[in-house]
């Protein structure tokens, strides 16, 4: 599986789709090759991460990122996974 730390929904969509289905533009090494990998953004995985680690590594990142953007990121990842 893939875990992302980048916060641009458009880039996330392209990269996550590529890992799942192959390059959507059909260019490049992964054009037409589906790896079938699931992608997540780290913000989605809060409940999986021990609280102390999250507090030390991610609390600051959460605070920096606007709530609406966090929601948009999570929604983008869910859409690509087809949930």
């Amino acid at each position: 599986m893939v875990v992302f730390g980048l916060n641009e929904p458009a880039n996330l969509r392209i990269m996550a789709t590529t890992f799942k289905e192959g390059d959507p533009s059909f260019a490049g090494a992964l054009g037409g090759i589906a790896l079938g990998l699931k992608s997540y953004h780290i913000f989605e995985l809060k409940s999986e991460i021990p609280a102390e680690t999250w507090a030390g590594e991610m609390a600051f990142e959460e605070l920096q990122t606007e709530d609406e953007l966090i929601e948009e990121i999570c929604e983008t990842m869910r859409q690509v996974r087809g949930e």
Partner: protein
Amino acid sequence: MLSDKKVAVFGERDDVTGLAVRKCVEAAGGEVVYEATSCFV
């Protein structure tokens, strides 16, 4: 969900770095097999 999974990590310097993501994944029992942090500037 992450434990015993092999994970590829893609971070971004101005968002969440690969290092931070890796620490989280490893703390949850995942194995990071690829890590990159891009710097778009």
